[in-house]
């Protein structure tokens, strides 16, 4: 391989696109530069102030009745502050704006971070454990979920990440676990409550072993029974429990459970924890995660040898995610010269800011609106499998025109004014800049036009 392509591969394929001077920082030792970004304490946190889960839930409690009325008529994305009366407005407005603040803070972090591999790694896990804003309750918890359950755990053990996700109020609310009750539990017997299998199924299918692991409907139902009791502290609970994970033995389905051929004795909450640990350690989980990671970083159809290396690392280290990241960096398959991944809208916009050496300033106009138009508003994945990162999903004809619209407007404000267009291209793409792109940039009528061409070039659209 051409040694001189390695820096640009490090900053675009592993990172989020070069900021000015970043290529030089990575040039000396691209692998070392990436590995230095791995750290046990996890990913960076977006800059706040951003309220944590109990605060968010407390606000929801205050508004409960009114939200119920409103939800009869509208879905979350249609809710507007003016729909609420009087002083309630003063509560709902910050709440709706709060979701926007989360999206903005995280995008600014991605645009500015000097550890872009760490951030790309965190974004993978945030998407793997999707909590989406399809309901108001989960909408206000998407940001806190990512900050509290995901970011601190992305370089720890997979098992801990899985447990953090599966016990966070955001996930419990999003996948309807919080109210699930065993039919033979006290609550199931006395009150009109019963089983909900949504979280159980998605943990198996999406978070761990994957749909082809050979489990049956009976396994899903049994796992759903095992998870009963996983809940969130409500208004009637003590103050210290409100808005936090709460195990309610009243909801727990008594009895032993048989899941994927293994029998689990009933030890209340420990039963489900035991199942989660077994799922985390399952070879099918290692394979599922490895395939997905390889596709996310390297190619829509990744080489099977790379998947194999990742899987071996995952199994040998009992799911040590730092070791997994190092394995990825060390794998020659991850450094193939050809850029095979087409950027998702979020990656495209973030890399645009990075190429300009800037960061968005207006949450609505610069972040939420363009990402909504391009079809990838953060925290709004339409389904619990999260966003696709495959070119076939994003390189549609209409989408290319939207990218051009965004790029030409963005360039009006952010085109670098103190360098030549060719130097700006070299700073973003290094050795990737082709002869034809160079020619097009020198012929452009203005720096603005040249920068838009750079952002839309085949070299910049891929990583």
């Amino acid at each position, binding site marked *: 391989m051409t040694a001189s392509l390695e820096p640009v591969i490090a900053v675009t394929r592993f990172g989020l696109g070069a900021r000015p001077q970043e290529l030089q920082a990575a040039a000396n030792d691209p692998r070392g530069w990436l590995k230095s970004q791995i750290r046990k304490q996890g990913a960076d946190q977006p800059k706040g102030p951003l309220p944590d889960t109990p605060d968010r839930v407390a606000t929801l409690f205050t508004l409960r009745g009114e939200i119920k009325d409103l939800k009869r008529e509208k879905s979350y994305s249609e809710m507007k502050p003016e729909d609420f009366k009087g002083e309630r407005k003063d509560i709902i407005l910050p709440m709706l704006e709060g979701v926007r603040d989360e999206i903005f803070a995280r995008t600014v972090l991605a645009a500015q971070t000097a550890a872009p591999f760490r951030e790309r790694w965190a974004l993978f896990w945030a998407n793997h454990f999707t909590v989406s804003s399809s309901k108001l309750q989960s909408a206000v918890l998407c940001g806190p979920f990512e900050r509290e359950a995901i970011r601190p755990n992305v370089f720890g053990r997979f098992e801990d990440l899985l447990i953090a996700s599966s016990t966070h109020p955001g996930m419990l609310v999003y996948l309807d676990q919080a109210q699930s009750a065993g039919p033979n539990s006290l609550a199931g017997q006395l009150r009109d*409550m019963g089983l909900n299998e949504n979280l159980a199924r998605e943990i198996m299918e999406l978070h761990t072993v994957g749909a082809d692991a050979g489990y049956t409907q009976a396994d899903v139902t049994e796992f759903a029974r095992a998870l009963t009791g996983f809940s969130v502290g409500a208004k009637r609970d003590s103050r210290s429990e409100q808005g936090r994970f709460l195990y309610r033995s009243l909801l727990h389905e008594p009895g032993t459970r048989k899941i994927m051929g293994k029998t689990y004795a009933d030890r209340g909450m420990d039963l489900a924890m035991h199942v989660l640990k077994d799922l985390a350690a399952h070879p099918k989980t290692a394979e599922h995660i490895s395939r997905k990671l390889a596709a996310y970083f390297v190619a829509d159809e990744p080489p099977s040898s790379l998947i194999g290396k990742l899987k071996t690392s995952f199994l040998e280290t009992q799911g040590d995610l730092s070791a997994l990241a190092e394995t990825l960096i060390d794998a020659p398959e991850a450094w193939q010269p050809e850029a095979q991944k087409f950027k998702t809208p979020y990656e495209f916009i973030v890399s645009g800011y990075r190429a300009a050496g800037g960061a968005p300033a207006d949450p609505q106009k610069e972040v939420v609106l363009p990402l909504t138009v391009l079809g990838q508003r953060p925290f709004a994945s339409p*389904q619990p499998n999260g966003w696709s990162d495959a070119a076939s999903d994003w390189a549609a*004809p209409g989408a290319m*025109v939207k990218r051009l619209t965004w790029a030409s407007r963005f360039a009006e404000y952010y085109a670098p004014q103190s360098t030549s267009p060719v130097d700006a291209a070299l700073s973003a793409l290094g050795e990737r800049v082709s002869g*034809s792109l160079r020619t*097009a940039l020198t012929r452009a009528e203005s720096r603005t036009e040249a920068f838009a061409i750079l952002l839309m070039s085949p070299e910049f659209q891929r990583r």
Partner: protein
Amino acid sequence: MSKTQISRRHVLTLCAGIGVTFLANPTFALTAMAKRKLVVIVCRGAMDGLSVAVPIDDKNYPNLRGDIVIPAKDTLKLDSDFGLHPKLDGLYALAKAGQARIAPAVAIPERIRSHFEAQDLLESGGAHLYSVSTGWLNRTLLSLAPGSATSALSVGAQEPLILRGKAQVQSWSPGGRMTDEMDRIATVLQDLYKSDPLLGPAFASGLSTEMTAEELGGDQTFQPRAVKKFATTTAKFLTKEGGPSIAVFSLDGFDTHANQGSSDGQLAIRLKLLDDVITGLHEGLGNVWKDTVLIAVTEFGRTARVNGTRGTDHGTASTMILAGGALKKGGIIGDWPTLADSKLFENRDLAPTLDVRQVFKSVLADHIGVDRKALETTIFPDSLTMAAVSGLVA
């Protein structure tokens, strides 16, 4: 509960001799076909068929559904057996005019309960999961005679699998407006993309569709959830001279595991959006509606019983909706398996009596004029045993 009237209608078709005229005059057939429009709405997240077409005469329905039952008196009665959800009033008006029908118990070829695998199977048209990697509507385009000028449009920011494949399709969503400066940049980009097999064709197609959208006029600003506007703009594309024959929409949010609601509530909101899309297309298509078939379909249905959180979990059979002026008037499509305990699939779901491909094939053959052989081999491989339902298209 009733059996369908398929076989009876089939006989009627033959007696009327419509089929004969059609076959005897291929030129007429070709020109007539060229005007035909097909709209497919993919309802993602598993739409609860029992709430779309409520089986009001099935005595097991109220017991199974508990809190989320939709009272018969609230439904819009199609016949003595089924009533539409109260939010589907636009669809109901069409049904009363003989321009909408339901198939109450359809399913994809394999019994799977993963949304994502099931959507793959629904959209790929394969007999088995992962047996085909492109979409059946794309392969439909490839099967049509070269020069038939049939093309397809995907509406939305992402391209759905059902349209993916070798044939270049158009895609459009609001918010793309071109300016003079952008025209200049676009020219440069077309040169940079000329040897790029992915971006080159996509960009060229996108530019031409955007130009059409601007010619068509109207308000092109972006508003999330303004689905009716999406629908009317789609109708403008379809009615334009030389416009696409096929359009695809996605509606999401049908995964109602908790607090599903009944006549009102979470699912009702979604069904209202679906009704808005259908109504928007009906209004926007104007004269072309008489040459249109619209299919609204989901990956699978939901459990027959309400779950412990006033919702429903992943099930099997669901309702498919057919609408359009080109439909033949008739009752429900396919048999009703009933909700009797012994009839439920795996003692939990409505059992399917029709395979989605039996309806798709019928519409493609009789409405779009797709060759029978292509239907059995390339478009829906290994589907010989799944015979097309007859008599759906007038």
